[in-house]
């Protein structure tokens, strides 16, 4: 019996050592040189794998950044702090990272937007958009089924009581997933320091907008005439604000007959208003 125990111990030992040596040899021979920065970068990134950078997850971005195929400030979710760290690892100068947040460009709350049908299908804006465009009469506004809320990885979106999504700008990382899933293009990324918005995306003529929604842009040109810095232009039946020229004086918002212009006031500390409301 002792002989067979000894023999098996020797056989196992010899085999184990042989295999171990084989693996050691193999790991040296077949070693793949990985850029050590890739791992460092992967650890720096938020790890949400949101894909806003355009690469397959955080590791994909780390690899691309190390190879110089992605900009140092490419991580939207990480914001300026991550961009600075990434730039440090890569040995490049951090470019001016402009924080962006999502914004809901629609004022058509349940009370203000006309509704002449009930949608009872799958609770998803994309599905509702395919079959007749949900219940609202406006063919451009928010469908209110919350696909953006479900898509948000960071819990920055919630569905408000009036049927429009609300962006928590503190939590929003500007990854842009909500803007991608919104079939109407109602959610768009804007610079975080932008103060004035025209909360409507409808390119329909003013008369048609009036018929379906009492809070849409009717392209009346009052804001364009009011603006002292020439920041507002009505293009394709929709007022467009140039944020670089806007001084956030709030005069356009005060004059807007449908209150579709939202102005947060010139100071950063100004109390943010809920989407759809306007400064009177």
């Amino acid at each position, binding site marked *: 019996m002792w002989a067979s125990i000894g023999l*098996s111990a020797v056989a*196992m030992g010899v085999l*184990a050592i042989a*295999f171990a040596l084989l*693996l050691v040899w193999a790991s040296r021979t*077949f070693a793949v040189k990985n850029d050590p920065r890739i791992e460092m970068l992967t650890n720096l990134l938020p790890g949400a794998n949101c894909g806003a950078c355009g690469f397959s997850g955080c590791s994909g971005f780390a690899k691309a950044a190390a190879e110089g195929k992605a900009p140092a400030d490419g991580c939207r979710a990480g914001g300026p702090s991550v961009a600075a760290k990434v730039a440090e690892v890569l040995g490049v100068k951090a470019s001016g990272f402009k924080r962006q947040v999502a914004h809901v460009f629609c004022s058509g709350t349940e009370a203000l937007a006309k509704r002449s049908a009930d949608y009872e299908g799958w609770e998803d804006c994309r599905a509702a958009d395919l079959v007749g465009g949900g219940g609202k009469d406006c063919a451009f506004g928010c469908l209110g089924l919350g696909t953006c809320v479900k898509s948000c990885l960071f819990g920055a979106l919630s569905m408000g009581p009036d049927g429009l999504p609300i962006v928590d700008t503190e939590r929003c990382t500007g990854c842009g997933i909500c803007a991608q899933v919104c079939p109407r293009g109602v959610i768009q990324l804007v610079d975080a320091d932008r103060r004035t918005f025209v909360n409507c995306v409808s390119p329909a003529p003013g008369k048609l907008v009036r018929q379906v929604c009492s809070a849409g842009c009717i392209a009346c040109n009052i804001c364009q005439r009011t603006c002292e810095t020439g920041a507002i232009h009505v293009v394709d039946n929709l007022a467009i604000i140039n944020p670089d020229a806007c001084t956030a004086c709030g005069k356009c918002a005060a004059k807007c007959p449908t209150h579709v212009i939202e102005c947060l006031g010139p100071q950063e500390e100004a109390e943010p208003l809920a989407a759809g409301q306007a400064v009177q």
Partner: protein
Amino acid sequence: MSFGALILLFVGSALINNFILSRFLGICAFLGVSRRLDTALGMGAAVVFVMTCSALISWAIQRYLLTPFKLQFLEYVIFILVIATFVQLLEMVIKKYSPSLYEAFGIYLPLITTNCSILGVALLVAGSSYNLLQTLVFAVGSGLGWTLAIVMMAGLREELDFADVPLSLQGSSLSLLIAAIMSLAFAGFAGVVPNL
């Protein structure tokens, strides 16, 4: 060993004694990685590869080490050692020479270490009197049979995504029922060829 007998061995290992549906080995990966058709194919390819290589090495160890020294009772431990080592080695080689294949295999390659059908093939070969050629045919046949089963399962489960499944049957319960019905179908192969 005639050519006809080798064909019979192949069909027998792939269909009649299908590893998943007749021997019930490798069920964990069969249920775990059968959600998408392409990943099921990837897993199947990895299994065929590792199964063939590990069966050949196990055959050699059994024949030239365990049998001469009367150490057959060690076969479980040693075969696990062989499989684990071999999967590691394979991973390194693939990573070096074919990064795209490495990306495609992904997590499935390490997962194969714990796939009991690999050990099953090694043990069945060790318990038989197969020569090297027969071992090769048996291992390739078993691997392809395993792939066939998991690909069929993945195809069915992909179709099920569009089906209105009752709440009580959703998920693993329906998967197990499907596996059982597929297994019944494969039981029909038994006895088609005597002594297989």
